[in-house]
């Protein structure tokens, strides 16, 4: 049996839930409350030492890194193939999977933290001390607050991501071509938060957003898409 450790407000969690629904994979859910910082509890850190969601438990194995989880679920379970219809689509989906982590999720977390006026409450401070150094450093920066320079860098990165998305969508029904893929699934829950945080993106993207949002797998998770002030992956440290 598969168990997904997930949290509402975590775009990476929502992406995995979309794949579970699209492929009709039987599973159990273990919900974490990000507002209560349950992802930093000693119990959850046993499951995922990074203190990040999602984590997938498949039998005795624990899998992390959400895009690699999407690929794993697609390869293990029969049904609709979501990796892409041909090698080019599969390359593009993987390219976007990587871009989401390095250029979108990391900067979105910073923009979100600023827009939602994120704070680490007193009871959550102990959790930060349990984290691995790189996660602790990122949360320390969040506690101190991101300065205008970092916010400008993050906003510009997100605006650029929207422009790139529009470029790849030009003339296509889906992000990687004719097939709905894990590329669409990885990107959409992040893009959904752009408008709410005042990040502008080209209008052409709206049509694609509507197409994705209309899928039953996505429509059923609407409540989970709304942003929560929480750190994402670390922004790139060098080049």
């Amino acid at each position, binding site marked *: 049996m598969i168990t997904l450790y997930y949290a509402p407000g975590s775009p990476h969690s929502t992406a995995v839930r979309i794949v579970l629904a699209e492929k009709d994979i039987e599973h159990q859910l273990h919900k974490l409350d990000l507002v209560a910082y349950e992802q930093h509890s000693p119990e959850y850190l046993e499951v995922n030492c990074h203190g990040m969601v999602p984590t997938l438990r498949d039998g005795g*194995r624990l*899998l992390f890194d959400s895009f690699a989880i999407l690929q794993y679920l697609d390869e293990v379970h029969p049904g609709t193939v979501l990796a892409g219809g041909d*090698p080019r689509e599969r*390359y593009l989906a993987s390219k976007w999977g*990587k871009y989401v982590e390095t250029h979108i999720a990391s900067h979105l977390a910073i923009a979100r933290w600023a827009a939602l006026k994120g704070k680490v409450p007193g009871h959550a401070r102990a959790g930060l001390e349990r984290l691995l*150094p790189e996660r602790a450093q990122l949360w320390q920066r969040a506690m101190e607050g991101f300065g205008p320079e970092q916010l400008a860098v993050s906003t510009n990165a997100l605006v650029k991501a929207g422009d790139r998305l529009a470029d790849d969508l030009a003339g296509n029904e889906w992000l990687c071509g004719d097939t709905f893929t894990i590329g669409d699934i990885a990107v959409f829950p992040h893009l959904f938060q752009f408008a709410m945080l005042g990040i502008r993106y080209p209008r052409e993207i709206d049509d694609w957003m509507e197409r994705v949002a209309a899928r039953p797998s996505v429509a059923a998770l609407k409540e989970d898409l709304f942003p929560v002030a929480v750190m994402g992956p670390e922004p*790139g440290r060098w080049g």
Partner: protein
Amino acid sequence: MIEVYTWEPNANSGKPLFCLSEKGVPFTHHYVDMGAHEHFSPEFLAINPDGTIPAIVHDGFVMTESTPAMEYIDEVFEGPSLRPEDPFRRWEMRILMRYMDNVVAPSLAMIASNRLAAPRFVGQDPAELRAQLDRIPLPERRTAWEKLMFQSTSEEEIAESERRVAEAIGRFDAILERHPWLAGEEFSLADIGVFATFYGLSQARPAEVNESKTPNLLRWLRRCHERPALQAAFRIGRGFIGQRAAEIRQQLSVSEATVR
């Protein structure tokens, strides 16, 4: 036809070269001279507007992300498979490549470029350096180069990168204690991804990577350097990385494969 635009068989530039060589796929190599800033030339920017190498072009389809491009090459071309059959092993292969790409390689790049490239800029005309920076398309890359040119990488950043590289060395050694290759019993893209950046580790960091501290990592380095296809890929380019690889083989007592 598949064409590869890269510099030397090193780091990201090395990945498609090692991968194609292992598969035995013929390809055209276009040398992009980074020293002469050819990756920012109008000709190359027409292929990849980001000005990053490598760029891999297959029948007009341009790929600029080296790790997904390796999976594409493995899938499209005949030759030995470089990805495990088992989806769980594939997941392991992918998380290792992601760890290498996002955490380890940038840390090593920060350390190496501060040691090797930064001193070159001391005393140069700041206006000239600014003009060079303006030619770099990606903002994150511009920031890194700005730090190099004006020596503003902090001690803390370098120390953090050192910590991460040391951690990776320990982590890889532990994985290689369990199985001969990074994603299991078979050589895979994870080995190429790590080797492309770590091939010189025993020479560059002898105090950390040696027989007594990291015996498994050292055995793996030897096994990689012994592979005829990887030796052959080191011969691509203008010779200075190939020369370095030959010195490392000698240091590791790895014999030269018969030239194919």
